[in-house]
């Protein structure tokens, strides 16, 4: 007796499925190879990322709904108080800015006197975090500004307190940011008090970064502020990074153990600035 119709179809579907698996595996190996070896696939990724926009909208929906509700339901007095607070803050900030105009002018004049190139202003782009890496040991986030808004690889990302990280991959509607606390991240820093230069490494905790290979007699103490040194050309000069909160010397060890706490709130990031450096400040090391 021949096989019943259903059995035949199931079996042929099964074989069909196996060959589909083979094709998928071959394709994915090819894609992984290309992505690993060279950057051929960035264009493709970029185009696919355009379709991921609805996904980011969905991820942000709860937060946005919550914020909207808070705004509409929020008591009037609270809003009035906040408004007043913001007004006073605005006044103090704008008076500080007046000083900055003066300083900038003076700085430019001095640069002219020295006949060196004046530092041009950085451009800031406001972005929001839309996704994070599901692996809790990878400190990587995705922000909602991409090449459409002129955000490109290696631009610096900061919040109102300090440096957060830099862009490692740009797509059309979003870009991936490596945080300074990721175990694969290192940032060249300078101690504001002494001018000592070093490199701060991420160790996979949102509260700590580490300064390695500082000799025991190094002049460094708790409360020292770390700024970006601008060496390496990756980060702009003079942005706050972290504050030293632990310096300890083990007996018999040639180096100090130095820990610093990042200024930026890396644990729950909301809004960030992407700093786009003016072109002629980029240093050519070759």
């Amino acid at each position: 007796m021949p096989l019943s119709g259903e059995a035949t179809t199931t079996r042929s579907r099964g074989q069909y499925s196996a060959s589909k698996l083979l094709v998928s595996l071959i394709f994915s190996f090819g894609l992984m190879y290309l992505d690993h070896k060279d950057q051929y696939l960035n264009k493709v990724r970029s185009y696919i990322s355009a379709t991921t926009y609805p996904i980011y909208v969905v991820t942000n929906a709860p937060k946005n709904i919550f914020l909207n509700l808070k705004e509409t339901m929020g008591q009037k007095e609270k809003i009035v108080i906040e408004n007043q607070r913001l007004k006073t803050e605005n006044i103090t900030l704008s008076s500080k800015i007046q000083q900055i105009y003066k300083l900038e002018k003076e700085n430019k004049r001095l640069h002219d006197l020295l006949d060196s190139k004046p530092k041009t202003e950085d451009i800031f782009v406001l972005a929001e975090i839309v996704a994070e890496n599901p692996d809790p040991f990878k400190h990587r986030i995705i922000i909602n500004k991409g090449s459409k808004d002129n955000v490109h690889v290696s631009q610096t990302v900061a919040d109102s307190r300090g440096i957060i990280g830099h862009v490692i991959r740009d797509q059309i509607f979003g870009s991936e940011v490596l945080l300074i606390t990721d175990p694969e991240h290192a940032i060249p820093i300078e101690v504001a008090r002494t001018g000592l230069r070093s490199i701060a490494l991420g160790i996979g905790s949102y509260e700590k970064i580490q300064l390695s290979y500082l000799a025991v007699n190094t002049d460094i103490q708790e409360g020292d502020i770390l700024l970006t040194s601008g060496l390496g050309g990756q980060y702009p000069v003079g942005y706050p990074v972290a504050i030293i909160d632990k310096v300890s010397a083990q007996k018999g060890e040639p180096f100090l153990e130095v820990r610093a706490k990042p200024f930026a709130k890396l644990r729950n990031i909301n809004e960030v600035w992407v700093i786009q450096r003016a072109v002629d400040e980029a240093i050519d090391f070759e």
Partner: protein
Amino acid sequence: MNRQIKNNLFTWAILMISCSLYVVPLPEFLSFFRPPWLSLSVIFFSIMTPAGFGVFSAFFIGLLADVVQGSIFGGHAMALSLIAYLSYRFHLQIRVFPMWQMMLSVLLMLLLNELLVLWIEGIKEQMTFNYIRWLGIVLGALIWPIFMAFLLNLKSKIL
């Protein structure tokens, strides 16, 4: 025909939602308990609707997951198409399993998926191995009965 379109729409809507749930920013203490939503949905659709969801669909949603997460291009695609194939291959058996065996097979497939993704990451960069990352997998297998019941219910209500 109309029903098939509705079915497909439902499948892809759920896949998109699980893809976004998988990367939604969470507070730090919750980030250790993130079930692998995307792999769960792929297993669900390959077991329950094998006619409308195959290896290639899993491959494409995997590519999307790679882009969304910023991992190596093709890594999740490979892992997901493999577990989609396995769940399809055994879908008739898994469907009639008692619940604990079903959960066990889901756990095995989630583990396989995670191992593949880890292994592929290890090629590219330093692998971060930690036992805490398996919490999400175990949680994923534990919530499988609720997940399955919820999706089946939703499906019968909508379609």
